[in-house]
């Protein structure tokens, strides 16, 4: 009987999840404010956190116990950045998928690229987060989140390209810089 109860509970939870997915899918079709959900992150601070040289400097300068305390704090901050990058990537997946319906071929291509880069970043962010949480238990060496940073930078480019294609009149400052 215990197995029956467990299986019934599992089926009930699964059904609730399926219903929620169906409802959220129909809400997406009607359109929601996606870009408002993007939280910009400070890439310079993020780069500083994952800098191996900085890590080595702290290790040489600080006593072992103090280094572990500092390293844990740095890892927690790194986790927050990676989490934000992953969330932004998820939002951009949606943005890109919505733009795929465009009639402009260049926009569709840019949207496809954005979706691909955003999915890659979300995947890398997930693995990086796992490594960070493992490293929190033993903060001897800083885990690398370089893939996340690199992915975020690539995503910046593709998001800007899509934005420019969707709204050509908007000033895109990067063009003047280059």
């Amino acid at each position: 009987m215990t197995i029956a109860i467990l299986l019934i509970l599992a089926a009930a939870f699964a059904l609730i999840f399926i219903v929620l997915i169906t409802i959220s899918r129909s809400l997406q079709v009607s359109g929601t404010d996606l870009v408002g959900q993007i939280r910009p992150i400070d890439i310079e601070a993020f780069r500083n956190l994952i800098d191996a040289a900085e890590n080595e400097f702290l290790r040489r300068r600080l006593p072992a116990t103090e280094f572990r305390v500092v390293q844990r704090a740095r890892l927690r901050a790194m986790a927050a950045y990676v989490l934000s990058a992953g969330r932004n990537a998820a939002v951009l997946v949606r943005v890109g998928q919505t733009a795929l319906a465009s009639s402009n071929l260049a926009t569709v291509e840019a949207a496809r690229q954005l979706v691909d880069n955003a999915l890659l970043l979300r995947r890398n962010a997930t693995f990086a987060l796992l490594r960070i949480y493992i490293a929190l238990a033993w903060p001897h060496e800083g885990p690398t989140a370089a893939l996340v940073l690199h992915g975020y930078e690539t995503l910046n480019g593709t998001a800007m390209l899509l934005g420019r294609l969707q709204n050509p009149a908007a000033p895109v400052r990067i063009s003047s810089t280059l």
Partner: protein
Amino acid sequence: MLQAHSFLWNFLWVAPNVILLALGVLLSRRGYSREFPAFLSFAILSAAGDLAVYCADIVPFISAIIFWRVQWAGFVVESVLKFLVIGEVLSRFLSPYPSVARLGRYFVSGFGAVLILVAAVAAAFARGDSSVWLISGFHVVEQTVFIVQLGLIMSLLLFAAYFRMSWDRLSFGIVLGLGISACGHLVTWALIANANPSAQQRTWLAFFNMAIYNVCVLIWGYYLLIPSKVPRKTNSPALPNHNLDLWNRELERLLQQ
């Protein structure tokens, strides 16, 4: 009314299979056989198999042993086809996303392997509701198959939800129907295989099972036959300037380093 072989019983058993069969034929005529070969095979063969089981149930000269053998044969074919349908949907769903396609396949396959272990443990602990293996074994195998089936569908839905990947209408309709069907059937077979319900309770469970299957067939019909709303081109969420400015600022800082 809620009696075995009542009008409602017969209707609930026959109607979804007739609709599913018609749906399969209609879709193959519309040229879906290249897009969804496994689902079309499932629609046609599973409906035909279920109708054969129905005939075996009502025809008086067919013995109980033969009925259960027909039931077994139909169930094996239907289960294999359902797993093929899940594989087909998985492949179709992941193909536009090359960056996570391999991860998705590993995730669903790995989840499937774990589910087989869980289902085997659940089967080992099942009480069995009959001294005749042909009957009790059928119920335990049904429970096992629906555990794996529901788990695979959940893993696919979870993967898509985590990565916020969007479903195409047809694949989502198929997965939705299979998922709801697996939930309802798992409840039924878990109770029958483990809780030893009375004859009356079994009849109610059979009605519940058939009602769920009717709903699923209607879901498939709705998603596969009714076209989706045409997305409004103007509704695409353009990235606003202020966000782009922020992103540009970050990128400029990087370039100036």
